């Protein structure tokens, strides 16, 4: 059966170049922290990967520490904020947007339940954090602002440069979770001027279970994973050499192909959007029409429930995701879509198509062909 993978925001396949680079490291078994030749060989390869990942986000100075992925990177930043408050910082408020990934939302909820002051920055109808909203909420009590670079569900891209300027004017630190942005839009820590940035290897055709945290020179950091001297004591744990090298190779390809990939993905996304709008009545595109990741199309089908759409598509070999409650096991649909003010029924009937580097024109034609009879059929048996 033909298979079409349109869930690249959930995770991406390994790039063939990455697989090759990772297999080439199987003899680099030395512990990269060891002084002997085997250790130094691993360490050199690992440092080359660090340079590639740093270059990808234009981090010419500052630290880039390797982590187990985006969730750990996010957790490490909030652990730092918590530690600073515990140490008696005059600033004791943390601001995060309402559409952050659970790695941020659940971490600050845990802090909130321990008595830390957390406030949420609302988004507009496109799911974007508007600079004026942050301006209104920020004051000299804010220690840290955290806003994602782009949203995983709607694809809406935030103006991190402007938000960072506002945070800095008020004297606050700025973190951005760039997990969804890397490999899709230019990510530049130098021009954005952020203090912390999280990224994850498996969202840009690298391996799973590896990521990084960028920390600007001179900003505070408190070690979250303790137990060893790796990363200058900033993050303990024996280096995951093979995965780090894979992520380095993935970063190298991103630098080479970013413009080409994002142009292609946007064309395919628009082809899919138009194809759906031409063949299916009553659809509703979610997220920002322009400030949007090139390959993300989040679209709602009234009178059709998301999990049903997802599973009927799965029978045709097509992988997508949904904001419906039924796919998560909770009774509430996607909090991200609800935060953007979307009607509950539209959230239940939302499908996210995320196009990637390996999506073809034929894939999109196939999805357009299969989707319309599925929606028609579901609507025929719907209660209205």
């Amino acid at each position, binding site marked *: 059966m033909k298979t079409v993978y349109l869930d690249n925001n959930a995770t991406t396949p390994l790039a063939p170049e990455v697989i090759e680079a990772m297999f080439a490291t199987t003899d680099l078994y030395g512990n990269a922290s060891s002084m002997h030749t085997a250790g130094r060989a691993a360490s050199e390869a690992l440092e080359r990967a660090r340079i590639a990942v740093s270059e990808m986000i234009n981090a010419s100075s500052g630290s880039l520490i390797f982590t187990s992925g985006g969730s750990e990177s996010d957790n490490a930043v909030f652990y730092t904020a918590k530690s600073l408050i515990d140490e008696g910082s005059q600033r004791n408020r943390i601001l995060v947007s309402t559409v952050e990934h659970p790695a941020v939302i659940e971490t600050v909820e845990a802090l909130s339940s321990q008595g830390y002051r957390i406030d949420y920055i609302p988004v507009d109808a496109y799911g974007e954090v508007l600079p004026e909203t942050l301006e209104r909420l920020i004051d000299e009590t804010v220690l840290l602002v955290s806003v994602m670079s782009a949203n995983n569900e709607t694809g809406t891209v935030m103006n991190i440069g402007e938000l960072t300027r506002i945070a800095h004017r008020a004297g606050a630190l700025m973190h951005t979770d760039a997990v969804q942005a890397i490999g899709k839009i230019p990510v530049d820590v130098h021009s954005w001027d952020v203090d912390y940035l999280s990224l994850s290897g498996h969202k840009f055709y690298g391996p799973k279970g590896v990521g990084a945290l960028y920390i600007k020179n001179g900003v505070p950091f408190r070690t979250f994973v303790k137990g060893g001297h790796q990363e200058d004591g900033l993050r303990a744990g024996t280096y995951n050499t093979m995965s780090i090298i894979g992520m380095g190779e993935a970063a190298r390809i991103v630098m080479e192909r970013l413009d080409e990939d994002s142009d292609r993905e946007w064309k395919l996304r628009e082809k899919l959007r138009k194809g759906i709008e031409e063949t299916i009545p009553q659809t509703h595109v979610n997220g920002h029409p322009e400030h949007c990741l090139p390959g993300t199309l989040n679209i709602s089908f009234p009178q059709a429930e998301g999990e049903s759409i997802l*599973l009927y598509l799965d029978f045709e070999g097509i992988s997508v995701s949904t904001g419906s409650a*039924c796919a998560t096991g909770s*009774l509430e*649909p996607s909090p991200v879509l609800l935060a953007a003010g979307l009607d509950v029924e539209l959230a239940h009937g939302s499908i996210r198509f995320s196009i990637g580097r*390996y999506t073809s024109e034929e894939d999109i034609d196939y999805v357009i062909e299969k989707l319309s009879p599925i929606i028609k059929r579901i609507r*025929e048996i719907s209660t209205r």
Partner: protein
Amino acid sequence: MSTQNSPAWVYTDTVKDHFMNPKNLWTDDSYQPDGEGMVGSMACGDQMRVGITVKDDRIETLKWQTYGCASAIASTSMMSEMAIGMTLKEAYNLTPESITDHLGGLPQHKFHCSVLGDKALRAAIDNYLERQDKPNPYKASVAKIICECKGITDQRIEELVKNKEATTLDELRDITQFGTVCGKCRFKVQQLFDEYKHIYNV
């Protein structure tokens, strides 16, 4: 992308069959049921409509529509096959548990998606008896006592929620005095209260 052997599906093969080929769908506008009932809401993510025709006190035909997920579609399809031919009394006593058993089970967190079919069926039977001006002997017979101290049934709780007489748990307590003696029913009452609020979208 390479095609690999399919890994196990989230649901059983029976669920898959009913999801792919739902039985007794109500797609024909000319269907004239003797009774019909609708429960749930689009906003809650699931809504169900059931229509029945009755002959000699038995369900002769049953047709249904749904806005819902795979579990809701499959369990209602299964329910429709089970209910046709049953006496009204048997049909009234169909439980979500017996429907999911026939489906070979549902994942734990999907069970709540399967509780609408039998409720819509009971609503259709109620509606049929009402239209016929017949007494409804079944309603009381399926009631389960939840609070033994105060003799409060699940049906009483359902009615209070459905008619918006109890919109909060506190209001329900003021009206019924549930849980005020031994207190052991409190958790169960809260669960039912939440479930009915979901089903009737209040």
